[in-house]
């Protein structure tokens, strides 16, 4: 290693928030996007490396069906989003994974597809799960229109007018994806194939790239159809208005087990975010420019919260409280408060008792926002080789196992899984119909014997109970010979011992589980906004709302990364 490549001394940081505080679902379910979210790190990289995007194919008929290709060119690789637009019966348009037809289907192709590739993709991509992809494809996805907004925008553009900004704000997207598959699913490339490429080394980068290109396609499609309808009158969308369009996404329980199945990876995400916060809290003085940037982000966030719509009663109440809390925060942070010593830490500590969890976690995002120089490097620390965490260390004495469980799973040992039905009234299973994770009622529905291993607390507590029968110096390997059914739990305990933010410290099969908390956490790391629960188990979100389009990447300039908070983008 040359001196130039030697790691810099990391910026000073206060102690990180403990896992017992952070790894609770009520908190994780209140996370908001940050500048470390994957959409933002992706676009920063694309801009820094001067990526260009060209629409190299556009064969969309006047009826809106056909195909298109967007080619993204970076310094070392090219990726092509191959799009297929379809006509479907309105009755077939469902966001649920049971759907078999969609308004549009997509594949992110590794490189530049030739005609034979396109023929193969045309025969398979529209079928999604029922088709077959190859290792040349990195992502498989599909999307449905927001019929209401799509028709409004189409009608207006065809009349030579701009769409109504209020209606755009109300919905936020022309199409919403209903699944974005990567990492080997349905035959697409394994992550190993791309993980060595810097632009795709971070988690979900290929998926985020695909969605960003899908967004460009949705706008091109509506403009194309407007021109087809009224060739002489139709206009293109105003750029500021266009920015307000993201890509919607409907996500259900299929996503929920990811955080449970990837504990070490989850740790890296959480640790990066917590380290970012701790670095900002360690800052001794807040310069004027930082204070102004914080104030601008806060103003933007308040505007965003004011426009955050959901029909969900629980989330509505939280948004109302959040709006009030942000007003309180605004008042607190003014009048020279930030001129004192360690101002960000003071603000955070005040918020811990003064604000609700939603606002506390939004404050985390806002504190991180003006400190890109201190935190952006952490974006490179949000993945790891999970194979290195798989092997169990069978030499652990039982004593060490028990101490580890007592430290990291006290919450599980305190629960009464045997005596209280509510402590395990749910079970996770894979549905035969769609091969997707589902949540069942253990005492009302059949299938509990086919439970997936997501009852983390219950299972670790059982391991702890059975470990009591062994002498304290017995090795774990011996215990697992006698109790092979505890192997999964033992692995989790060892991962949690190495990675403090690996385990969600809540009962995932209890009657009071709110599954969308799991989704919200993961989606916030993606960079999603406008979290809109449609029930306790599926949500709609918006992705890339406010972000530059491919043709704006080059000219985005220094305020390129300021797109998340709307009052900055609606210039």
């Amino acid at each position: 290693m040359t001196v130039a490549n030697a790691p810099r001394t990391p910026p000073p940081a206060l102690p990180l928030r403990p896992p017992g505080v952070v790894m609770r679902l009520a908190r994780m379910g209140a996370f908001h996007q940050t500048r470390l979210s994957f959409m933002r790190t992706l676009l920063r990289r694309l801009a820094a490396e001067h990526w260009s995007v060209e629409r190299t194919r556009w064969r969309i008929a006047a009826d809106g069906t056909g195909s298109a290709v967007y080619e993204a060119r970076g310094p070392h690789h090219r990726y092509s989003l191959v799009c297929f637009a379809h006509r479907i019966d309105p009755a077939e348009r469902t966001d649920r994974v049971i759907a078999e037809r969609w308004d549009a289907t997509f594949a992110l192709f590794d490189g530049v597809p030739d005609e034979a590739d396109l023929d193969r993709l045309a025969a398979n991509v529209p079928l999604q799960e029922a088709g077959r992809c190859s290792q040349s494809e990195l992502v498989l996805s599909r999307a449905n229109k927001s019929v209401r907004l799509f028709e409004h925008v189409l009608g207006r553009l065809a009349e030579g007018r701009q769409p109504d900004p209020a209606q755009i704000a109300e919905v936020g997207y022309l199409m919403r994806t209903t699944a974005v598959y990567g990492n080997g699913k349905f035959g697409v490339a394994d992550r190993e194939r791309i993980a060595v490429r810097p632009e795709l080394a971070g988690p979900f980068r290929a998926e985020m790239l695909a969605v960003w290109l899908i967004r460009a396609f949705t706008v091109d499609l509506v403009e194309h159809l407007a021109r087809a309808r009224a060739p002489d009158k139709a206009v293109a969308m105003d750029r500021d208005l266009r920015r307000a369009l993201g890509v919607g996404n409907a996500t259900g329980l299929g996503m929920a087990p990811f955080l449970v199945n990837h504990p070490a990876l989850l740790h890296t995400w959480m640790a990066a975010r917590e380290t970012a916060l701790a670095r900002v809290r360690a800052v001794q003085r807040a310069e004027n420019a930082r204070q102004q940037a914080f104030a601008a982000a806060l103003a933007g966030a308040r505007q965003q919260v004011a426009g955050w719509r959901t029909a969900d009663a629980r989330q509505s109440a939280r948004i109302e409280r959040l709006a009030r809390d942000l007003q309180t925060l605004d008042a607190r942070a003014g009048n020279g408060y930030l001129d004192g010593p360690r101002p960000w830490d003071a603000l955070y500590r005040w918020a811990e008792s003064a604000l609700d969890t939603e606002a506390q976690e939004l404050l985390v995002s806002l504190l991180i926002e003006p400190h890109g120089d201190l935190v952006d490097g952490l974006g490179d620390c949000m993945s790891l080789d999970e194979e290195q965490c798989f092997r169990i260390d069978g030499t652990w004495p039982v004593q060490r196992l028990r101490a580890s469980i007592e430290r990291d799973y006290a919450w599980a040992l305190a629960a009464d899984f045997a005596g209280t039905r509510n402590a395990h009234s749910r079970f996770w299973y894979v549905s035969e119909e769609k091969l997707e994770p589902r949540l069942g009622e253990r005492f009302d529905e059949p299938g509990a014997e086919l439970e997936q291993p997501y009852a983390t607390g219950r299972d670790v507590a059982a391991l702890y109970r059975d470990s009591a029968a062994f002498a304290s110096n017995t090795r774990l390997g011996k215990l697992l010979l006698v109790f092979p059914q505890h192997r999964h739990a033992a692995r989790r305990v060892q991962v949690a011992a190495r990675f403090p933010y690996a385990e969600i410290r809540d009962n995932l099969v209890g009657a009071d589980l709110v599954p969308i908390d799991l989704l919200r956490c993961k989606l916030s790391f993606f960079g999603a906004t406008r979290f809109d629960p449609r029930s306790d188990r599926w949500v709609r979100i918006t992705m890339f709302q406010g972000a530059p389009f491919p043709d704006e990447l080059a000219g985005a300039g220094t305020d390129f990364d300021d797109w998340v908070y709307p009052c900055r983008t609606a210039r």
Partner: protein
Amino acid sequence: MPDCSLNEVQMYGLRAARGARMPWGLAEEAGRAARWLCARGLPGAEWLQRLLARLEGSDHAVHAPLTAESPWRATAAPLCPVTCGAALSDGIGNPQSLRLAGVACPALLAPFVARVVPDGHCLALRWQDCELLIGPDGLLAPLPGLAALGVETGDEVALVKAPLARAAAPLVPRAGAVAVPSATWQALDALAHRTYVPASDESRARGAGAGALDND
């Protein structure tokens, strides 16, 4: 012969092993082992499927090794290579001198042996007229023929320390499609199906959490 991703091999291996009544933690090992072999160009999915076909239907515990004995043997034949491999990986037994009797699909031991190779040496895994050399960086070329590798049962399996051959090069794992025979895939899929819960109208409505209209 569908081309599968390594992730699919691992996922279906896991689900099929679970469908064959392996405990979760061992089923995870089984899926990983199949993937490890496939990434090195070996028919890991076929071997795992053949193993599971022999194990399914019986209590998995009877195929676990009695490790206090030498050679390791099962209460009821055959001995499960995944369970033996996991034990070896957990530090049970001496990897530099170990004997096992009646191991089903013994090549499935290789991914586990690779975890316990002592520094500066390699381990030789032998059965019948077959020898696999495994060094600190994994499986060493050249490999024996597939027929010898893919035997149904390793009657007398031995694991011994061997000098690290200078000329031997480790097989580099590759990412890419794996050709899995259709019959193998169907058999794995059939076992995996045993882990799925059939839908009822009630679970359809509740389990996925639909309710609100999504056609706007």
